């Protein structure tokens, strides 16, 4: 019995010991929700990271990076364990997963282990308020708020109805938008809904009969968008435009729900068909298409940018000889460059204050960037509805 126990413990130890960094490579770790309800998002993030590493290794002769990804199963404790395992395997930095409830504890653990942590999947202001020296993120709630707010203001509505999931990121965004629009004199009504809700007809009825708003704003996720627009298509509230947030203005949404998406507006970085203005973007789109046989996705673009920035900072720290002596956070703070998401530069809290999204409108299978003017690839159709 005892021998069996010792043998089992040995196997466990051997398993844990697996996967250290090879001498000629720099190991970067990542934890992503590759299973569970957020698996689709985690998969998209994973693809973007891998393409970024592939492109970095192709252009860098001095430094080669290897990526090790662990499924965090969208569980904080497992994300923390993943960070600890990655660091014990020799990872010089960790790329975070999705959701502030995961990123918070995981980046705390990373900070305790003095390891740089970057994310594109958490927008809570609490994360940057901690003042961690090793924490960085490229996107934030303020950027989404700016992007959506700029579009809404330009359309000059008298009233707006916001349907907001009570989940963390949508709730924050709705609160911010409500404050900004109300300050501009727009009448805003927020309808919060539980993420478990699938029938949105009662709340759409409120928009139709009580609010009678000009614009319907959705601060939510993919399944919610579909439910809301489907209910709106049945009840036809007197709105002139439907605007949503992340993961809405994507080719995938149109291909899956062509009857619901036309003229709907959502946050976006790229038009579709993809028109890359710069060399990096073109190479990303080509490599992505070659590797995964599909057009680049919204979340993949986010993770591509964060991974590229991290890889470049690693190269800078390695060149300066400070990579193994805690110099990576300083190298990260030297970042100042244009990316597919716009400019990226980190402040003292690790946030990217220059982050702002563009807005894209579904147009018969295409996505036209309609706001801000500097990024626009076409005029907005307004009024414009899917029905």
């Amino acid at each position, binding site marked *: 019995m005892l021998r069996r126990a010792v043998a089992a413990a040995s196997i466990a130890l051997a*398993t*844990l010991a697996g996967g250290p960094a090879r001498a000629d490579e720099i190991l970067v770790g990542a934890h992503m929700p590759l299973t569970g309800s957020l698996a689709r998002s985690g998969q998209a993030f994973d693809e973007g990271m891998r393409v970024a590493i592939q492109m970095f290794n192709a252009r860098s002769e001095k430094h080669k990076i290897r990526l090790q990804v662990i499924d965090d199963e969208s569980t904080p*404790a497992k994300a923390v364990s993943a960070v600890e395992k990655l660091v*014990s395997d020799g990872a010089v930095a960790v790329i975070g997963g999705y959701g502030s*409830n995961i990123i918070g504890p995981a980046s705390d653990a990373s900070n305790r282990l003095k390891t740089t942590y970057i994310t594109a999947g958490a927008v809570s202001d609490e994360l940057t308020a901690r003042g961690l020296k090793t924490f960085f993120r490229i996107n934030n709630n303020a950027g989404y708020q700016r992007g959506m707010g700029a579009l809404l203001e330009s359309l000059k509505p008298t009233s707006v109805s916001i349907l907001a999931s009570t989940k963390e990121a949508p709730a924050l965004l709705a609160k911010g938008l409500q404050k900004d629009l109300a300050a501009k004199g727009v009448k805003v009504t927020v309808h919060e809904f539980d993420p478990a809700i699938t029938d949105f007809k009662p709340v759409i009825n409120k928009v139709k009969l009580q609010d009678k708003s000009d614009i319907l704003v959705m601060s939510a996720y993919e399944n919610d968008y579909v439910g809301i627009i489907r209910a709106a298509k049945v009840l036809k509230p007197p709105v002139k435009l439907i605007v949503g947030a992340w993961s809405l203005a994507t080719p995938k949404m149109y291909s899956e729900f062509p009857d619901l998406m036309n003229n709907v507006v959502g946050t976006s970085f790229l038009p579709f068909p993809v028109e890359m203005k710069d060399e990096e973007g073109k190479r990303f789109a080509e490599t992505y298409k070659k590797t995964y046989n599909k057009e680049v996705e919204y979340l993949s673009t986010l993770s591509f940018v964060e991974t590229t920035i991290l890889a470049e900072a690693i190269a800078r720290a390695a060149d300066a000889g400070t990579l193994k002596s805690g110099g990576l956070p300083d190298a990260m703070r030297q970042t100042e460059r244009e990316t597919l998401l716009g400019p990226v530069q980190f402040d003292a809290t690790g946030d990217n204050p220059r982050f702002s999204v563009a807005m894209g409108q579904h147009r018969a299978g295409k996505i036209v960037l309609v706001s801000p003017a500097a990024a626009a690839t076409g005029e907005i159709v307004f009024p414009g509805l899917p029905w």
Partner: protein
Amino acid sequence: MASLESAPAVALKAAPARSRVPGGAALGLGLLVLALLPVLMGASNYMLGLLISALILSGVALAWALLGNLGGMVSFGHAAFFGVGAYASALLSAKLGLPVLLTVPLGGLVAVVASLAMLPALRLSGPYFALAILAYAQIFRILATEASWLTGGGAGFQRYPGLPNVFGLDLASRTGSYLLLVAVVTLCALAYLAVRRSHVGLALRAIAESEDATRVVGVNSTVLKSLMLLLSAFITGVFGALNAHIIGFLEPDYAFSGVWSLMPIIAAIFGGYRTIVGPIGGAVIIYLFDQVVAKSLIAVGHQIILGFVLVVMVLAAPNGLLGLVRKGDRHA
């Protein structure tokens, strides 16, 4: 009351067999092995982190088994007590500045207060009780979401104190948290043992055998079962509170996640819910098996392996791992 009627006879008949090996000694030995594991494993942060998660699950599994075994009630809503304990402790420490080592048991007490609302459900039996308590967990999740002025709502609650230093031992460190959890699990297991060995425990086992007959001889079954619900809620709340201070982030979907109701049931049944060591060992084994062995074999989708193992386990050993070990001992 709920549907554990099939097993009490086994439990009562098995009592003399257990008396050959003192329960306290077996419990002490098992927990000693647990305490030594970090040393044997080289005390890496990763392994300690896994053990900490497993021990939190152990505590909730123990509380669930206590309610099921002694109270005769199947609960699908322990997430309610877990979440209430977590939020109570985090809020008391952050808003009132109370020391964390005080707010953790207070979190358990608030979970007890919350469980008082469940007392009317004790009149229900079988699946009706299970459904009522399942709905109860949802009510608290929604309350935590809506009371955003207090809990931060869906945006979550983060800036609250972690575990403190005690006599030079940093309880927030992996080693400190692990030792604290071993101590708390041991205390809870000993409390369970004390209840089971007391007259109350005897009466509860008799209630499980025949509630009507026990009432005839003057036992107030409702009061005793209520006490088990309160004790189970307290233990679950304490582990919820500990988890909150170890993880350092709370949001309603996480604190009241169905995982806190489901996984303890799986762990307790896997280990043997009619014993004390069973739920603890079951939680540690399935968590480590899933995260260390299964995950190394199938990095993505490793839960399939755990699912197969559980199905085989339930078919081969309906009394859990401990039942299987005892069966093996008898055949040897």
